[in-house]
């Protein structure tokens, strides 16, 4: 029982169109780390807006957030 009490609360959000449950609290920077992504290769969209790179550490994710990982492409 003690173990349950120290479990971090979970955060249910949508990631790339699929429902995911992640440990809270979590920032955009934390999410990228947890997904093992390289910040130089992606942009992060939260609730239909790109999150500025400089705000990754201070942007706390909230329940119900819709997140999409946008991949950096440069072909012509």
């Amino acid at each position, binding site marked *: 029982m003690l173990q349950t009490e120290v479990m971090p609360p979970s955060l249910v959000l949508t990631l790339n169109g699929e429902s995911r449950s992640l440990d809270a609290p979590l920032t955009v920077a934390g999410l990228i780390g947890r997904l093992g992504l*390289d910040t*130089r*290769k992606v*942009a992060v*969209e939260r609730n*239909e*807006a*790109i999150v*500025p*790179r*400089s*705000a990754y550490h201070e942007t706390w994710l909230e329940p119900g957030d819709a997140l*999409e990982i*946008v*991949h*950096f*492409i*440069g*072909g*012509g």
Partner: protein
Amino acid sequence: MEINLTEQEIVRYSRHILLGEVGGTGQARLKAARVLLVGAGGLGSPLALYLAAAGIGTLGIVDDDRVDLSNLQRQVAHSTDRLGMAKVRSAAMAAQAINPETRIEAHETRLTAANAAALIAAYDLVCDGSDNFPTRFLVADACVAERRTLVSAAVLRFEGQLSVFKPHAGADLPCYRCLYPEPPPEGEVPSCAEAGVLGAVTGVMGTLQATEVLKEILGIGDSLAGCLLLWDALAARFRTVRLPRDPACPVCGREA
């Protein structure tokens, strides 16, 4: 603006002139415009063809590459009988065949740190359809420095991205580096030559890019500045998301 169109031009552009948002004044504005295309490949082909057809007065095309057989699956400004020809010359021939009224300035050179500012400053608006990250960042930074609107598209596999960058036009409008602050680590993001691209995807993205160029010149509709359009062709899904300026952007942010 003085409407300076010949009788032939009034016939050629009659379907534009019929549009209330364009009219004779808008068509004259297109004729007075100078647009630079960076890259005469998959995106540059539809750009060159549609912008020439639309009556853009002067089209600059910069590319140092030659037409290769592997280009022809998507680079529709080129053709089998022009294999080996400089792409800028081949694209100029295709554009002129559609509209001899458009003046083509062919720059058969690679865009470099040494020539980017002068080339870009010589045009009103720039389209990036290049195929590598060093060129994309060079174009983006030079456009901010020279206060030129950049209509930028990119493709890979079945995906496309498009935006308009004009931080000089508003304090909340982003530049390219607000989206991608630095080039990806070398060799970590594949090119079309490495990962492939569906030919028609470049056609759609280059044509969307041409549409945004015309909107910017005409000053009509909602500008894509401050927004990013994403297209997933496999999912048949278009989305437009907000793209704010990054206050800490090294190029257009508060500290820059």
